[in-house]
């Protein structure tokens, strides 16, 4: 394994007006590793992910991908870096106007790594990797259930054989069985593709299943990180309150103030 982190975040700050969301994040994700960021709603998990993807610009700090700082890159450079990424969105974010196969093969068609003629075969192959039959390829996203949309989103995320896959709350809104199916698929396909994974979630079952390492975000800072297997033994009271889902503890919800 290379010594250079696949993703290296240093002193990342981002505020929206007076509200400070990210307050000096430091995080390394090594090649092939699966890191899960946990934290309550509104703690800045999605903002951090959007900064890494270039959808938001941080106020301060650096984000390095394979040793190259990607903050404030011009559009052309950003497009080059984005070829290394893919993402499974919380809502799957499938394109309503396109059939499933065009959704799955959208990236490879766009970067011309596959011809339109062969794109459907590629899509069917990727759909098979996430356990979906070929006849789904011609359906439209509106005809699929939430779990199926997530699986199509996952097929789209792996279609371009990315180096890094981001997962934004991959199990939100799914029943426990489908959530477990998605977790298994995430583990399986990231290993098959050989990708590095950075996920954000507040679903602890999902975090335990897909993470090699877990980091907890609270008030814009990483307050704890360590191997997934050690999280239950950690003595950080914030982490303990979060993973056990207790209302009482040092984390105060805004509603209780």
């Amino acid at each position: 394994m290379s010594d250079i982190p696949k993703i290296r975040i240093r002193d990342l700050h981002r505020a929206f007006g007076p509200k400070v969301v990210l307050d000096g994040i430091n995080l390394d994700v090594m090649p092939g590793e699966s890191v899960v960021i946990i934290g309550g709603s509104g703690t800045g998990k999605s903002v951090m992910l959007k900064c890494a993807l270039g959808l938001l610009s941080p106020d301060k700090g650096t984000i390095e991908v394979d040793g190259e700082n990607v903050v404030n890159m011009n559009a052309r450079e950003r497009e080059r870096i984005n070829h290394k990424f893919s993402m499974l969105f919380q809502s799957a974010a499938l394109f309503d106007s396109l059939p499933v196969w065009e959704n799955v093969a959208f990236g490879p068609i766009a970067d011309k790594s596959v011809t339109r003629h062969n794109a459907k075969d590629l899509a069917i192959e990727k759909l098979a990797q996430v356990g979906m039959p070929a006849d789904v390829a011609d359906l439209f996203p509106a005809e699929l259930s939430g779990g199926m949309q997530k699986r199509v989103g996952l097929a789209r995320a792996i279609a371009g054989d990315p180096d890094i896959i981001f997962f934004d709350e991959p199990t939100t809104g799914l029943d426990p069985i489908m959530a477990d199916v998605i977790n298994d698929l995430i583990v399986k396909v990231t290993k098959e593709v050989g990708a590095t994974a950075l996920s954000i979630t507040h679903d602890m079952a999902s975090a335990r299943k897909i993470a090699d390492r877990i980091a907890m975000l609270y008030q814009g800072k990483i307050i704890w990180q360590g191997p997934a297997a050690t999280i239950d033994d950690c003595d950080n009271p914030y982490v303990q309150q979060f993973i056990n889902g207790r209302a009482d503890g040092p984390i105060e919800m805004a509603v209780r103030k």
Partner: protein
Amino acid sequence: MNILQPIGHYVLKFFKTVGALVLFTFTALSHCVRPPFYPRAILRQMVEIGYFSLPVVGLTTLFAGMVLALQSYTGFSRFSAEGAIANVVVLSITRELGPVLAGLMVAGRIGASMAAEIGTMRVTEQVDALTTLSTNPYKYLIAPRLIAGTAMLPILVFIGDIIGVLGGYIVAVYKLGFNASNYLQSTWEFMSTADVVSGLVKAGVFGFTITLMGCYHGYNSKGGAQGVGQATTNAVVSASILILCFDYILTEMFFAK
């Protein structure tokens, strides 16, 4: 002081919006002329704007031409100037009513649907998904619509002009008892290339304006269903006002002596 504060707030907000719109326009225009191009997306938008708007524009200009002939007859018959009806119909339709009515109808149909579609894509993260798939949303979503709108409106208006003149002919010949060949001869004699061309140039400007407003408001919509609804309203209202505003400016440019 308290009175000046809200005034200053609205003035600043106005200039901020104008600045954002100008920036959006130039960014979108730059993507219209730089590869990659998406011919399938352009073709799809051309069909949507041109073909599917044809019934609405055709009916509008048909009845406009019919009403124009009827009203002109009512007024002109007082001065025994019925012979000028063909002149009034062809001049009004080609210079003003054709482009303006077609523009307003297309603003209602296409401007609204573009704002709603892009707005929904924005709030459901589909626009972000495009970026993560190395596809610039300006190139894929905005540029094809601007190109198609600017190209198709003149064609729609040209067809609308013919239908509008036909409407005037139907009323003049079948209701008011005009001689068919005399009416057609008068129409042909009074019609000038400059009138038709000025109407088509107006149509091109209106097509650009309608699609720009639809794309701008949709692309910048926020806050879920309510935000998309607001974007749709803003797109139609701003496009309609700008059509009437540009109509005056272009008329002044073409015909002021």
